[in-house]
């Protein structure tokens, strides 16, 4: 390269360059005017306002690029998070739906919950309910005088302290040692029935006639007489006007007959027989732990009521679901009557645990159900007759 022998043209160029340098000499001096112009241009291009401390260290990166870098990192991360959450939620939703469906399938249609949970259920109902629970003052719970033909009951709101123990007005009756199973349910039956009836009454309030406003039966005393009962036969009574809580399928339908004031329930194996005082008999099977078949006359109103009851009873599920569906003829010949419902333990806190039907004792259960007569329906809340009520 540079060590190569110099060409003639190179020598001539060097001679030319030397000659021009000699001609130039040292005469090139920057004039003050030219210097001032150049400095002015430099000041204009690099103004003092952007003057920064002179440092040989590299300048720190400004905050904006750093911010953009962080945002650029954050956006994909956030998108990934949202996407993952969405996928997880989509996967979880069907599982929840299935679980809910299974739960609904396991829940009997008309079972009320435990005594402790009933107030919560009542307050957690939808706001569309006709009667708010705030109206449950003692005054609103007072029962009007009943006709003489009806069994008379007295009502009294029980205090908290009385629910678990003995009533305030009636001295406690010692429980017989021969019937330990029935002791606890009967002691707490009063409070249970009170709350149950209130919740039931509130639950069926939608679409119900104004007759609901006039009477609210309740059983207050827990002083049940100690009796030894036949586990296969039990008399039931429907206290107060519960028997008359007829629900018309439409407003053109007549009021339902008050056919069930008291009745006797008899079990034979898995068959139940309901006998009214007038001798009518309704028979049918007792189902255990599976969903009952749809009632023959399904109406939208009934379904709605059942849904209401189902919602109200969802929190508490007894250990065994005892559902029955009894059919027969009503007082009007040829008119089918169906009673379907659940045997509900009197106390879910001390619910009897049964593993087969032989252990089933009817006096430990109350009855919740619906009566279908023609196009009419009536809510049935029946208690074993052994629960003592007092007049007022």
């Amino acid at each position: 390269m540079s060590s190569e022998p110099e060409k003639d043209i190179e020598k001539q160029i060097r001679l030319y360059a030397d000659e021009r340098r000699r001609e130039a000499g040292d005469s090139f001096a920057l004039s003050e005017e030219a210097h001032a112009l150049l400095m002015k241009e430099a000041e204009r291009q690099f103004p003092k306002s952007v003057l920064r401390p002179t440092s040989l260290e590299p300048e720190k990166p400004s905050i904006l690029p750093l911010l953009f870098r962080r945002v650029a990192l954050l956006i994909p991360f956030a998108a990934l998070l949202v996407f993952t959450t969405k996928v997880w939620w989509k996967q979880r939703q069907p599982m929840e739906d299935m679980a809910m469906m299974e739960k609904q399938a396991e829940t009997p249609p008309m079972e009320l919950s435990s005594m402790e949970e009933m107030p919560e259920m009542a307050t957690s109902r939808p706001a569309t309910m006709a009667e708010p629970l705030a109206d449950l003052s003692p005054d609103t719970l007072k029962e009007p005088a009943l006709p003489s033909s009806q069994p008379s009951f007295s009502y009294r709101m029980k205090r908290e302290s009385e629910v678990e123990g003995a009533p305030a007005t009636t001295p406690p009756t010692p429980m017989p040692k021969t019937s330990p199973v029935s002791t606890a349910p009967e002691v707490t039956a009063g409070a249970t029935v009170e709350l149950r009836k209130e919740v039931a009454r509130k639950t069926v309030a939608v679409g119900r006639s104004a007759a609901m406003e006039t009477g609210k039966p309740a059983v207050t005393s827990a002083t049940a007489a100690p009796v030894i009962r036949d586990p296969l036969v039990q008399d039931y009574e429907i206290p107060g006007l519960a028997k008359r809580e007829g629900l018309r399928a439409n407003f053109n339908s007549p009021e339902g007959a008050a056919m069930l004031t008291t009745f006797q329930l008899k079990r034979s194996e898995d068959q139940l027989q309901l006998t009214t005082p007038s001798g009518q008999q309704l028979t049918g099977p007792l189902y255990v732990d599976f969903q009952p078949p749809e009632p023959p006359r399904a109406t939208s109103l009934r379904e709605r009521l059942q849904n209401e009851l189902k919602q109200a009873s969802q929190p508490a599920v007894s250990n065994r679901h005892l559902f029955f569906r009894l059919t027969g003829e009503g007082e009007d010949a040829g008119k089918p009557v169906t009673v379907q419902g659940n045997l509900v333990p009197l106390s879910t806190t001390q619910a009897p645990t049964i593993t087969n039907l032989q252990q089933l004792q009817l006096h430990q259960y109350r009855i919740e159900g619906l009566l279908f007569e023609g196009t009419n329906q009536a809510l049935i809340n029946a208690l074993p007759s052994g629960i003592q009520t007092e007049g007022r």
Partner: protein
Amino acid sequence: MDASEEDDLIARCRRGDLSAWDVLIRENYGPTCRFVFQLASDLTHEDTEDIAQEAFQSAIQRLRQFRGNSRFQTWLFRIAANKARDHLDRRNALKRGGGREDLSLDAEDPETGLLSQKATEDPTPPEVLSQGEDSFFIGEALEALGETCREIIQLRYFGDLSYEEISRTLDVNVKTVSSRLSKCLDKLETLTKLIFRKANEVKTPSNPS
């Protein structure tokens, strides 16, 4: 001034330090003028200073684009060479009243077998003889060279840059610099001979004695 001092000076200039600008301008003004003065044999001192000041003004405006691949002075020389070229083009255009023709190295004269076109119309051969033939022929031949060859020869022989400095300035390999310079020198030699012959042909009839 070594490279690190020059980097510091340029950094201060970028920050708006006028004292740094003052140093940068004063230290490079003389060399730039001497470099420009060599680029053409007919450049006067005034022309040279005008070109140098234009080069400095352009360098001030473009300093943000200076990446430091070469020395600042080399970068300034290239700007000055372009300014000088523009200056010569404008002046020649004014003299002719139009554009000037470039001498093509590819177009040969059918009679002589050499390039057919004359590099320039001025100065006249008698003027050439009065100025010194060698300088005139080299200068004319450089102007007739293409841009690539002219730049590398100017940097090498007028700017006194090494091959390495030229390679960094032009962003080419050192071997490329060497081979390109060799070819360009050959072209320059051919052009010089052609211009010399033409000048003698013109000189002979006008001065038979």
